[in-house]
């Protein structure tokens, strides 16, 4: 493992093209390949059927892309972490985005919305042993939540909520489909959550109140 201080990394990478810069770039590329392979190993069930050469090829491609990201972002390093930790973020984010892209390709938002009415149905399954009064309470709260989502959220908030919260789609994937950045999607969802929470609190309903009829 090459031991460079943060200053050494910055100096070598910022230098004019030459031997020192080429060596630092090669070292960083090697670290990136090793780092991204750790990440891909954590997610290897998603790469079932991939050969070692396939995985190595993907890791090298991601490392190369991250290297370009880093070179364009060196000025953004504030020195509040190890340089390598800061740098690994670029390659991990690249790898995470790539796996998400493969995970969810060909899924449209419209398709997700089609499944919307069934959302709360599964919560009500397996109620053979439930007393009718308890069952009525469950139905009441689920219907209330559905109504809040339907009537108090904007169309875009509803779409985002259904895709991310209900169907577990990734933020990046949904953001791309909605023409947003991940940050803008986070804010949209945050507003949606605040709206639902405020609406429940205006009815003096706590989390415990809603969950009570669902306890066995």
């Amino acid at each position, binding site marked *: 493992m090459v031991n460079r201080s943060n200053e050494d990394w910055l100096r070598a990478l910022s230098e004019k093209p030459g031997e020192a810069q080429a060596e630092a770039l090669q070292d960083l590329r090697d670290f990136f390949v090793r780092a991204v392979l750790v990440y891909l*190993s954590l997610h290897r069930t998603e790469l079932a059927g991939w050969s070692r050469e396939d995985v190595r090829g993907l890791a090298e491609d991601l490392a190369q892309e991250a290297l370009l990201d880093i070179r364009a972002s060196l000025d953004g390093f504030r020195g509040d972490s190890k340089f390598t930790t800061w740098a690994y973020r670029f390659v991990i984010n690249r790898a995470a985005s790539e796996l998400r892209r493969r995970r969810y390709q060909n899924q449209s938002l419209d398709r997700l919305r089609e499944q919307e009415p069934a959302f709360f149905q599964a919560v009500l399954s397996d109620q053979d042993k439930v007393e009718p009064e308890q069952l009525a309470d469950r139905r009441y709260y689920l219907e209330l939540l559905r109504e809040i989502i339907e009537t108090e959220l904007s169309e875009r908030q509803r779409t985002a909520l259904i895709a991310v919260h209900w169907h577990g789609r990734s*933020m990046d994937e949904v953001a791309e489909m909605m023409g947003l950045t991940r940050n803008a999607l986070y804010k949209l969802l945050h507003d949606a959550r605040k709206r639902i929470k405020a609406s429940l609190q205006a009815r003096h309903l706590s989390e415990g109140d809603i969950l009570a009829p*669902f306890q066995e």
Partner: protein
Amino acid sequence: MNYTEFTDWLERIYTTAEVEMDCEQFQALLSAYVDLEIAGQGAAPYLAQVKAHLAQCPDCAEEYAGLRKVAELEARGRLPKVEESLKPFQESPALEPLRM
């Protein structure tokens, strides 16, 4: 959505804060936060906000977990070599000899 997913979802709603750290703010702090955690100094002033963001953003949580793992291995001098990481994957098929 089963019962467990429903309770998790409801918790996401009720733990929503009026002001939350967004993804850009989180990403800007991420590497420093991971280093502090590895150094055993995770109780930084922004810990609660970081944890709240991780609970609400699956993508940032996934990236945090990956970075944490890599940085931890590196800090212990145990970042695996390429061949070691490739071992769990299947061997590449041998190339067929070229027939002329």
